């Protein structure tokens, strides 16, 4: 187990190195010139050249990359071009808001998905089942920004139940979390449904039923834990997905997370922030999968045996 985790950690480091290299190369190859952006339209060629030298942009690509890597190893993600501050602390300041949003979104997803999935599995072929199966397709086919705007229109503009945008009170979390959660819930429901149908057909469930246990107990204590495995893996994947996907939701709801930070940085060609957010997102994706892989054997002895 320890060896496995160690190997995965080394893999993680290598993947992050690769992500950093590709992002660096792409940003370097793009036609947008950060020095010119900072200097402004009316700047002379001399000013632009000065800024370029100051930022180290006149160095060869490999030298720049090496300097950047040295920074990362020391926990330094560089300095923002536009805001003149440390990228690490800029991102760190935004992460709590994004984590809160992600946690709330995953909560909505899992609760909704589990409930619907169990009902669908129990009433297989019934009306609820068919609606859930269809809803899972609608969920993956719906554009996130349209759902965000729709929820905003109905619950903030028309009904006035929740604030339009912003951050701070619990009411602010509801709509963005619902946007993230509702779309994913259908897929969870689908997986829970098929896992539950599998489990419910097994002998030990029949035994439990023969013993005269109540069906609530059979479902919650005996069947559900065995159906949880795909859900854990799915949550691991989602942590990474959300990290990149929050850009849209945060833009619509004015949520001050790293998605918004990234979006502002992209518009200002603030390369250090773009690099930083990409790396943090890649880290989240890898860690999400790693955590799911570590948790899986803890809840399922069948995997531990392998």
């Amino acid at each position: 187990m320890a060896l496995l985790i160690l190997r995965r950690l080394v893999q993680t480091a290598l993947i992050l190195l690769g992500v950093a290299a590709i992002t660096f190369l792409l940003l370097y190859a793009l036609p947008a010139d950060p020095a010119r952006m900072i200097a402004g339209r009316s700047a002379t060629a001399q000013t632009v050249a000065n800024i370029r030298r100051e930022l180290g942009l006149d160095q060869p690509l490999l030298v720049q990359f090496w300097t950047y890597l040295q920074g990362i190893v020391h926990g330094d993600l560089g300095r923002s071009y536009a805001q003149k501050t440390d990228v690490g602390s800029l991102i760190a300041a935004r992460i709590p808001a994004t984590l809160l949003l992600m946690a709330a979104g995953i909560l909505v997803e899992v609760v909704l998905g589990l409930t619907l999935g169990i009902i669908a599995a129990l009433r297989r072929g019934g009306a609820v089942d068919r609606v859930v199966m269809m809803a899972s397709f609608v969920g993956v086919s719906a554009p996130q920004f349209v759902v965000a705007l729709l929820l905003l229109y109905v619950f903030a503009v028309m009904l006035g139940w929740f604030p339009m945008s912003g951050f701070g009170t619990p009411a602010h979390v509801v709509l963005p979390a619902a946007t993230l959660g509702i779309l994913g819930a259908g897929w969870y429901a689908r997986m829970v449904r098929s896992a539950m149908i599998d489990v419910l057909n097994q002998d030990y469930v029949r035994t439990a039923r023969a013993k005269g246990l109540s069906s609530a107990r059979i479902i919650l204590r005996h069947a559900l834990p065995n159906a949880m495995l795909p859900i854990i893996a799915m949550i691991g994947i989602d942590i990474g997905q959300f990290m990149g996907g929050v850009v849209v939701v945060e833009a619509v709801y004015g949520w001050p997370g790293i998605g918004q930070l990234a979006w502002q940085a992209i518009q200002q060609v603030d390369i250090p922030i773009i690099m930083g957010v990409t790396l943090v997102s890649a880290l989240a994706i890898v860690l999400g999968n790693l955590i799911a892989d570590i948790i899986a054997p803890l809840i399922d002895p069948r995997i531990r045996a392998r």
Partner: protein
Amino acid sequence: MRVLKAMLRQPSALFGLIVVVVVVAMAIAAPLIAPYSPDNQMFDGLTLEGAPMPPSEQFLLGTDTLGRDLFSRLLFGARTSLVIGLVANGIAVAIGLFIGILSGYLRGFVGGLLMRFTDLMMAFPALLLAIVLAALLRPSLWIVAMVIALVNWVQVARIVYTETRGLVERDFILAERSLGAGHFRILFMHILPHLMPTAIVWGTLGIATTVLLEATLSFLGIGVQPPQPSWGNIIFESQSYFQAAPWLVFFPGAIILLTALSFNLVGDALRDILDPTQRGRG
């Protein structure tokens, strides 16, 4: 024909198929159907206060903030969105097939290297990457298509790799090799045909993803640029107005949803029908 018949038997696949056919037909026939030019800023297309007109007999789905007919813009937007869907996804599937087949067949050092690269791309935050690329390149229809293709090939490559690995081990490949067939012959005449179902399924499912991604990029203002209409940028152009004129957001939104849903339904039905492991199971 067998495939078509099987699809017509499933209500959801039939629904998807009908919507896909209707959307494609309307996109092709856009100049014939559209009541107005999509770029025509009509003086009677705005209210006296200069606000967009709600749906009416004259303007079927209302007008946008510049007094253009929304229905006509949606029709021409369908062309943009579908072209990107087909081109971007076609390229993505082609790249995915190429890399997947090569790494699955070669294995060894080169195959391993290609697959590690694919794993690396899996860890890339795809949407973020697309947004960064689209924003920093000067956006145009083709750039958007390239960006989407660059992001979307990874999944196809993974699946094709797994399938190729399985195929290479099969006896008919061994037999072919012992008959003296070269690598090219095995790859193109024997392995590729077996991968066609996968390519068709992902070619369909991927269009849904691509249409959504294009809409998202355009919604952020970094996709297809106005005045050329696309479903996403129609929403982008009118989002600041959406409290007063919600139809400008929700008609295009509904069409994006319906189109993506239909491609997903058709793709899913194709997967059930074409998957060889499902064949002959009743």
